[in-house]
């Protein structure tokens, strides 16, 4: 144990990408935004809720009017180690399946059996599962691996979705982001939504909703920001005292972004139970990049200065500070030989001897 931690470490193979701001932040009028990602980010898992024009009120996701944009963009759901997001992702998948949509799932992190656990047979039959778990990198050389590796699997998924409302779930985006360059992943996601739109007929009917799971501790702000910019909704999972909460940031085109926080729990049958209401702690987990809170703001005593007090403080000269005024005072000749005098009244017991003033000391 304790082998020297002195690297050499392999250099990271993925460069950090800045968010490309393509069609993000609701500023894009033409609706040409790339696939809107609704990420639901649990404290760990970032899953993307879908928000494109679908009435998903029960999920607490705000309904959007149908747009001409082809992307169903849900966003990433951000989870964390403490608050996992896969169960929320499965709950959203169940909702989509019950709504009659076809659901395609790219499973990278868990086996197909484990992912399908919890769904009943009617829902399981509607799920089209692409298994990247068993042999993602083709080490076994059995020929059963999905061709083209992770990127090839993503592109193959895109080709196989039929026209019509479809939900695509990626479990997980983090797995893909660790093994693919961020730009390639974003381009593949954009391409998926474009191709789906091209295949379909009317604008409102063909809606692609993409749900992705992102583990927020695994990635820096660059890749996370890039994926967020593609998303229409981001759900960040956290919680207190055993109760999970979801902070939902919704960015609709041509509208202001909205932020909502909900308590929720996923029941054993994978239905979503929303408790709504503001949580006890109304702020999500603070982003380390935001400025710190003023420490003097919640005290029982006052540490702030009024304007007058501040002026008086600034104009005060400290007694032992050698300022220019003090220098002038010393250089000026004094008013008399002694500017300070000591007045002493000896009492009856004093025995002052001017020649030996310390005579009374017993030293």
């Amino acid at each position, binding site marked *: *144990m304790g*082998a*020297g*931690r*002195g*690297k*050499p*470490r*392999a*250099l*990271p*193979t993925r460069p950090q990408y800045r968010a490309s701001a393509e069609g993000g932040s609701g500023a894009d009028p033409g609706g040409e935004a790339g696939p809107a990602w609704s990420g639901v980010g649990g404290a*760990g898992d970032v899953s993307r809720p879908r928000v494109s024009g679908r009435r998903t009120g029960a999920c607490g996701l705000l309904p959007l009017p149908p747009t001409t944009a082809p992307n169903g963009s849900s966003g990433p759901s951000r989870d964390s*180690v*403490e608050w*996992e997001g*896969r*169960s929320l992702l*499965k709950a959203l998948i169940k909702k989509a399946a019950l709504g009659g949509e076809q659901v395609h799932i790219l499973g990278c*992190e868990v*086996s197909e*059996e*484990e992912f399908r*656990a*919890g769904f009943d047979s009617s829902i399981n039959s509607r799920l089209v599962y692409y298994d990247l*778990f*068993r*042999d*993602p*990198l083709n*080490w076994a050389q059995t020929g059963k691996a999905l061709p083209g590796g992770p990127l090839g699997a993503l592109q193959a998924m895109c080709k196989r979705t039929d026209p019509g409302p479809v939900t695509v779930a990626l479990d997980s985006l*983090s797995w893909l982001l*660790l*093994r693919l360059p961020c730009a390639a992943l974003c381009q593949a996601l954009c391409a998926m939504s474009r191709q789906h739109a091209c295949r379909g007929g009317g604008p409102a009917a063909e809606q692609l909703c993409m749900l992705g799971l992102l*583990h927020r*501790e*695994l990635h820096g702000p660059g890749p996370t920001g890039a994926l967020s910019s593609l998303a229409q909704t981001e759900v960040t999972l956290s919680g207190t005292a*055993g*109760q*999970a909460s979801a902070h939902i940031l919704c960015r609709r085109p041509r509208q202001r972004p909205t932020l909502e926080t909900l308590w929720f*729990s*996923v*029941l*054993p049958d994978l239905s979503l139970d929303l408790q709504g209401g503001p949580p006890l702690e109304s702020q999500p987990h603070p982003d380390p990049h935001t400025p710190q809170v003023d420490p003097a703001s919640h005290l029982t005593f006052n540490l702030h200065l009024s304007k007058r007090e501040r002026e008086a403080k600034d104009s005060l000269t400290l007694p032992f500070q050698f300022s220019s005024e003090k220098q002038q005072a010393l250089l000026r000749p004094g008013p008399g030989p002694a500017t300070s005098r000591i007045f002493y009244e000896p009492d009856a017991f004093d025995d002052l001897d001017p020649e030996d003033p310390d005579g009374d000391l017993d030293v």
Partner: protein
Amino acid sequence: MPTQMAASLCITFSPSTSKGVSLTVARECGQLVFLEGLKSSVDVFFRAQVEPHPLQFLREANAENLQPLYEFVREALKPVDDGEAAWRCPVLLVDDLSVLLSLGMGAVAVLDFIHYCRATVCWERKGNIVALVHDSGDTEDEENNILLNGLSHQSHLILRAEGLPTGFCRDVHGQLRILWRTPSQPTTQRDRSLTYQYKIQDKSVSFFAKGMSPAVL
């Protein structure tokens, strides 16, 4: 559903010391397959290898993955006699993954290795994996943080052993925080995390609730 549990801890928790496990006997009868990394790394350098050595990455300047190591694990798990495995439910103990990082492998390569081990040990053979990663608390160490968090997200059970926040104690060696990540039990939300303190003894470990060490009661 196969879960990743603290299998190694189950062995050392034996209440009576007379029920210890003899690893030598286990190794001889094939129950235990032990790859001693330090010793066999010497073989990589000083002995001619016919087939890829599990620790082949030590020799290669640009080793991209740990596939030879995974092949070793897979071979060890193969049933030996007439298609039937002699032992059920294998357990893979990895001690420890942080060393692989120090030897030059990237975090993603180590995560891929564990991914494939999970596919074989947990899914195919219905076994368990227990892996150790060190957390130095250094936020600058990106690779280790990616490995630690990546592994945590893959795990059903996380055991964090750390020293006491108040410092050294002779009777309490540390505390263990147990976090369940199994998603399918929402009713046990409150039991998702438990913290125990422990003392390591000669052949076992004794656990007790916080503040309930026998030395202070």
